């Protein structure tokens, strides 16, 4: 199976994928991101991990922070971020399908 060259999130880490998934339905600030990720993935992201991943995603142009007067910065997914998330989820789907098929064939 060919590796998808469009999948820029392949090496970005799980936190980046979780953040992009959380931002896919609208902008959120740090605390809302942590709560949302805990709800849909059952994983509590550490605040240091969160800001590290947000900085990395912002440098890659996959998220952007919205201007605000408050201390909390909401982040939103960019068009490039949405495309990257879609490509990564497609890739995961292929891996998932192959994994399930092989488990069935192996009788495990």
């Amino acid at each position, binding site marked *: 199976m060919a590796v998808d060259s469009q999948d820029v999130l392949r090496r970005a880490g799980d936190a980046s994928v979780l953040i992009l998934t959380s931002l896919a339905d609208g902008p959120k600030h*740090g*605390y809302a991101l942590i709560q949302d990720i805990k709800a849909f993935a059952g994983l509590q992201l*550490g*605040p*240091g991990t*969160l*800001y*590290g991943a947000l*900085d990395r995603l912002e440098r890659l142009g996959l998220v952007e922070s919205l201007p605000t007067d408050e201390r*909390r910065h909401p982040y939103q997914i960019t068009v490039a971020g949405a495309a990257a998330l879609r490509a990564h989820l497609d890739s995961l789907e292929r891996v998932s399908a192959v994994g399930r098929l092989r488990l069935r064939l192996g009788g495990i």
Partner: protein
Amino acid sequence: MPGLPPARVVGLALRCYPRRWRRRHGTEAAELAALLIADGVPARSVACSYLCAAARERLTPRPGHRLAAAAAALLIVAGSLGVPLGLLSASAPASAASAARGHSASRNPAASRNPAASRNPAASASAQPTCTPHPHPHLRPHPHSHSRSDTRDDHGQHC
């Protein structure tokens, strides 16, 4: 850290970040930590998360700095490989300087007897006027502001 209040523990961890990061995320990160601690997340775990991320932030080169780091590495490699070349290129001024020193010493027996005096213009000036480079080039008088005799030493020789 059991004796410290949670806010202080987190504050200490946040101070480990680079200043640039603190300017951008500092207040927001402190507020997020307070919310998480209020939710029941242990302050120690929040502080640990910030500490690890601060270490990563400091150890990971920034895109701009990556170029500088690569240039520095190249310079080090080039320096270690090109030492003889560097010596060759530096030999011209060095030989000129040594020739000038030898020339000066031949005309200044005191300096040749006392190499320290020749290295210390102030000491040699107090002992005997010699033709030594001016110790402070930025204080050197303008060449056109003096007569031609100023450029001669006591023996009437050009410096």
